[in-house]
């Protein structure tokens, strides 16, 4: 799978509350490493040549016939095209139903005192802006390393992560994609183990 031409072209640490916009060419691999464990990494994907063509959580869930993402999951677009595939996963499963935190949804969930706490939507908008990604272009995201169990009774909860220090997930791009990442700053629930921490991005392509 590893081409002799492949070189490490990205090796960077994303601090909690920070983000990244990474262009991964078709065939390139992007690995996200949960350096300290239980860190939610909110992630959106876009066709690098057409941002209207973007990751769709509910199309991805429906077409794979299952809620959780793991190795083999095809990350589909709003036009049912494959943007990337999860090709390695040492965590086991990832959420794609829980969405991102926002200042406004923090108020709903935790009260008005959280209005000005930093949130993923801020990071998405900041890092998306240079590519033209604004409010309308923010669909429902993936939360790598986040544990959002759903039950046959139709309940949904946020629980402590299944992840641990050094666990990773790796995407292989099917086409040229932009990967928009927010390393979640949420302090009010266990999605980051109550203590947001840094993650590492590693990228390999020709």
């Amino acid at each position: 799978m590893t081409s002799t031409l492949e070189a490490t072209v990205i090796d960077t640490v994303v601090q909690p509350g920070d983000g990244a916009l990474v262009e991964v060419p078709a065939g390139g691999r992007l690995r996200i490493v949960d350096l300290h464990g239980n860190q939610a990494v909110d992630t959106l994907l876009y066709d690098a040549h057409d941002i209207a063509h973007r990751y769709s959580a509910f199309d991805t869930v429906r077409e794979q016939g299952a809620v959780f993402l793991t190795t083999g999951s095809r990350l589909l677009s709003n036009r049912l095209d494959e943007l990337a595939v999860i090709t390695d996963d040492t965590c086991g499963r990832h959420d794609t139903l829980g969405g991102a935190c926002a200042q406004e949804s923090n108020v709903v969930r935790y009260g008005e005192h959280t209005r000005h706490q930093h949130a993923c939507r801020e990071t998405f908008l900041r890092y998306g802006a240079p590519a033209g990604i604004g409010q309308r272009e923010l669909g429902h995201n993936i939360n790598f390393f986040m544990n959002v169990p759903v039950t046959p009774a139709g309940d949904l909860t946020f629980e402590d992560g299944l992840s641990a220090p050094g666990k990773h997930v790796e995407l292989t791009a099917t086409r040229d994609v932009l990967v928009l990442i927010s390393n979640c700053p949420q302090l009010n629930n266990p999605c980051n183990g109550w203590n947001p921490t840094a993650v590492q991005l590693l990228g390999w392509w020709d």
Partner: protein
Amino acid sequence: MSWAHEVPGGAAWSTPVRAGRLVTLTALGDDANVSVLLFGADRLDRLNVPDTMKAQMSARIRPPMVLMSDRGLALASVVSSTSDWHDCLTGFGHDAHLERFGPSSYAADRNDWRRSARSGLISELTKHGLGEADLHGPVNFFSKVAIADDASASLAWQAGHTTAGDQVVLRTEQDVLLVLSTAPHPLSGAAYGPAGVQVEVGSAPWPAEDDASWLFRDESARALEMCRRVVA
């Protein structure tokens, strides 16, 4: 004053609805499905299913949940329903989901031609100056996709979940744009023949002190309160 409109199966439609209205959706046949998108008063803010689910700890839509927007505002409350499970996990149908029924066109089938939810929703959005970028996770009223107790939380569409006459009643909490499609649920295994849905709009009484949505959860009340600050 109230009015009603019957949307035939397989069609799409959109209408603005003012704040403080009751919107009653009635299934006109068995296994009806209506995929609903909602926009707030400014037509930029829109339904956010993940936020609606996580704030109310539910992977299905049921009374008395509040449907919430990107901006943390109540769009509509689910006042009542004959069903306690409306799917919100599996999106709307694409052209690909109609391929199993064979080709269809206006030229061949006139107004019985088969069109997907996605194409119908985009057509409606375009009439309001919106488009593909404004598509978002819908609520599929009258449909149930069951969640298995297995490692991947497998999903399976449930036949027979809805029968003719079933209803769901929404109360608009701000001026909304309602965009809907009555195309088949994308996971439906049934033969083609989607049921129609009646949409009735009437005035809603001001919520009482013991309104079920206001009392449901603190999160529901806060979304309603934040909406009221903007609307009042």
